[in-house]
């Protein structure tokens, strides 16, 4: 493609949405920092009204002192300089960017949900019942015998899995097991979690079909294997067809099989990790069960296990203890016999769990199965409409296209100009210049067509055009090197720069 090609102007191309992100431009910057609007220094102790002796207090504190109207504008403007799910399609592969039903915010905001964690069990039967019912829902959905809701995110769920595996092996006198096997194409948290748990990571290459290479797995397994961590469908969207054989191989050497639940949105109602031979799994409720990602969190990463591992789960868990005075079931907290203890100071991200419960209760069996069916339909339809090559299939809720001669990161920047969010880029590395795409069930055919048009328009554009993108977003292409080479991580450092 020649470099002098005129770029498509997404604002005039009729097949495209005309998109310009809001921007508030000031001298050399966008919306000013709060600290640039005001800095008020408050001295402590000088006015003689400090309730503490001077040597126990700080001297002063300097922060912005702004009125409510000023703050309302500040944060409204900031929000306008963010692309969210309600702005348009957000097909980030592996992230499952679903629409977040509004009513779940209302239930999480109920005053009866605002409970202190040290309340007596008798006085929080509602909270315990909700947690119990959610444990039960998740157990059924994953085919698991017992569930803990404590882990505050997927990676924390992985950590529970790894700690449970360690405790289990230790309990069986097999504390020597020091290796966790992870496919090369896995998510970074799998590797980092295994390392945090003190394990050596054994990296597993994929076979030419993009699945677990059974020969390589055979070679990797040994009496030192603590666990194999897998996601299924894997990060290419492919179902690990040999999953039962894989489970047997892992179990034969005494290892455990861990299921990374990030891709569960492909399987709801059609297959369950527990039925495939997985021993322990996490659920990403901020993916599969539509709780909002909140710009990076909070999420929740409940963990399900088979009966054999139940006694190792984090403490406390919730159980039913029969009828109370008025006939309703009562619930209590208890510590599993061989518990690994806590992975969170309290019981995890409660408000997120309330939203997940509401989502599951709203959709029920049919809704959940339908969500997966349409997530898979959408991914396959979108794939059929885009011109980039997709080397691996058949895929389910996501596919990984290759940007070919283009730089996937540049493709992503250019897609922003078409008013859509780009896919996840450059991962998994098994696909060169990967565009990992997961539209989820929430997009209509029209939106998918628009998304496909954006992919296809960018596919035809020159590298020069791509490198200059984006041009319709609040900020233009950002210099990452400068940010890292000269780290400025607070407004204090900006003030120093000026002087």
């Amino acid at each position, binding site marked *: 493609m020649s470099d002098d090609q005129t770029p498509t102007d997404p604002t005039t191309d009729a097949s495209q949405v005309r998109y310009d992100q809001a921007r508030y431009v000031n001298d050399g910057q966008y919306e000013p920092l709060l600290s640039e609007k005001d800095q008020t220094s408050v001295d402590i102790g000088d006015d003689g009204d400090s309730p503490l002796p001077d040597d126990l207090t700080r001297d002063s504190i300097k922060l912005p002192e702004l009125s409510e109207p000023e703050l309302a504008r500040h944060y409204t403007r900031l929000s306008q300089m963010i692309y969210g799910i309600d702005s348009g399609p957000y097909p980030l592969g592996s992230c499952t960017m679903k629409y977040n039903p509004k009513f779940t915010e209302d239930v999480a905001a109920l005053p009866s949900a605002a409970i202190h964690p040290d309340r007596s069990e008798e006085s929080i039967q509602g909270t315990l019942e909700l947690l119990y019912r959610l444990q039960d829902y998740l157990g059924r959905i994953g085919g698991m015998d017992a569930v803990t809701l404590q882990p505050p995110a997927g990676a924390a769920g992985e950590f529970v899995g790894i700690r449970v595996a360690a405790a289990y092996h230790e309990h069986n006198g097999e504390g020597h097991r020091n290796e966790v096997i992870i496919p090369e194409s896995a998510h970074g948290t799998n590797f980092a979690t295994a390392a945090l748990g003190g394990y050596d990571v054994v990296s597993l290459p994929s076979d030419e079909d993009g699945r677990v290479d059974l020969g390589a797995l055979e070679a990797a397994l040994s009496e030192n294997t603590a666990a194999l961590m897998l996601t299924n469908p894997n990060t290419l969207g492919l179902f690990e067809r040999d999953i039962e054989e894989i489970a047997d191989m892992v179990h034969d050497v005494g290892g455990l099989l861990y299921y990374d639940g990030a891709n569960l949105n492909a399987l709801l109602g059609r297959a369950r990790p527990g039925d495939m031979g997985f021993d322990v799994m996490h659920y990403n409720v901020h993916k599969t069960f539509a709780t909002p990602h909140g710009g990076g969190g909070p999420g929740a990463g409940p963990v399900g296990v088979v009966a054999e591992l139940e006694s190792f789960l984090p403490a406390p868990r919730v159980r039913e203890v029969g009828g109370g005075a008025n006939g309703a079931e009562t619930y209590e907290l208890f510590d599993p016999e061989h518990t690994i203890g806590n992975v969170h100071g309290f019981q995890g991200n409660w408000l997120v769990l309330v939203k997940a419960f509401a989502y599951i209760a709203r959709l029920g069996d*049919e809704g959940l199965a339908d969500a997966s069916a349409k997530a898979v339909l959408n991914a396959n339809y979108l794939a059929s409409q885009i011109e980039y090559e997709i080397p691996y299939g058949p895929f389910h809720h996501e596919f990984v296209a290759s940007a070919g001669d283009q730089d996937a990161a540049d493709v992503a920047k250019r897609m922003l100009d078409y008013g859509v969010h780009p896919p996840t880029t450059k991962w998994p590395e098994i696909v060169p210049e990967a565009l990992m795409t997961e539209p989820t069930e929430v997009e209509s055919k029209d939106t998918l067509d628009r998304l496909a048009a954006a992919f296809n328009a960018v596919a035809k554009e020159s590298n020069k055009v791509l490198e200059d993108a984006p041009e319709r977003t609040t900020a233009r292409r*950002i210099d990452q090197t400068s940010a890292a080479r000269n780290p400025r991580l607070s407004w204090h450092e900006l003030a120093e720069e000026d002087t």
Partner: protein
Amino acid sequence: MNESDTHTTGSPYAPHTDDGRTVMLEAIGVDSVDELFDIPEDVRFTDEFGIDARSERETRRLVRSVLDRNTDLTELLGRGHYGYYIPSLVDHLADRSEFLTSYTQYQPEVSQGFLQALFEYQSLLVELTGLEIANCSMYDAATALGEAATLAERVRSTSGHRVLVPDLLRDGRRSTLENYVAGTDLTVESYPTDDGTVDVGALESTVDDDVVMVYAENPTVRGTIEEQLESIGDIADGADALFVLGSDPVALSLLQRPADVGVDVVIGDASVLGLPTSYGMGLGLFACREEYLRQVPGRLVGVSEDETDRRVFTLTLQTREQHIRRERATSNICTNQAWVALRTAMHAASLGPNGMVDLAKRGVTRAEELAARLDGLDGVQAPVHDRHHIREFVAHVDQPAPAIAEDLEKRGFAVHVVGEHEIQVCVAGVPDDDLDDFVATITEVVR
């Protein structure tokens, strides 16, 4: 409850029409959605979960009816989780869907607003702690403490392996810490406290070159204000150990600035501002000295420039993180508590420095006043510790504490039981009227 009322079948959040679906299937070249699933027969799930679908209204009613089983109590509870009043501004603006529904800012050009809010959050913590670096969240205080210990392990200059924590440390925090160091050669040990704060003499005698981290809290879990931070810092320093302090944004607005007393890392629950009581959900505060920059866990937002040379914000130093560094990452954290950090920044901005200092001061005076009122009752001595307090304090009760707490609960109040004859009472977020009612009630109860 009627679970089989009318409602949509299928996901209410998937906007497909039947016609659209047919066209899509044709384009793909299959006859049915089932054909798209490449799942071996043997592992197909053909059963049902047995979960009924509900309308939105029914679902709301269900959740409300379940949560209505929670007793409505006036909570005088703290010990690391507080229920300060949250200004309406926070809910209304944080709930704007661009904040709520966006992902981590991997495309900074289209995410400037969130990045700026996180940068402002980091700056708030830099101001409060006096330390140069604050990340934009860990999960909660306990996991932040665990991350501080793994940081200590990475940066240690000696071969030491002991992590020292106060004997008063909450069980959940200690247990989380132990899980975080289980994969290292670090071990967690308690050191004694004396009358509610660090027993500096005892600490000094247990510290040796084998110590890599000394952890203390200000305020402590019993609401006391630590008076010897500098000595603790010196002791840690003498052993080349990291001095890690647990605190929170309200306390930090008034109490000694960590950087002034030799603290290397501050951890804690920053959602003391920003979240109501949320059954322990929190926001892990993590701030540290600049020299540990390359070893910091979690996300960092920094400043850069865009192509038009304007100042912009972006995630930076990502080579520390799991998606790049994998098993050599400084932490496994990915999804964090970003939206809570936004709320914390909003709450702090709404208070302003005067409001924050005032809130902290009132925590001291109101706790002191309530303690004095309880101390006047027969069979109650408060506070137990001869220390300054903020927000909460421990009271001795002559009668068994569990019985007192139970009786109080029947009358609408929740307090902590922290010993056979000790209750703990917290004033944070509790209006004056409710405190008056509480005093009247406990007067009856202890009579």
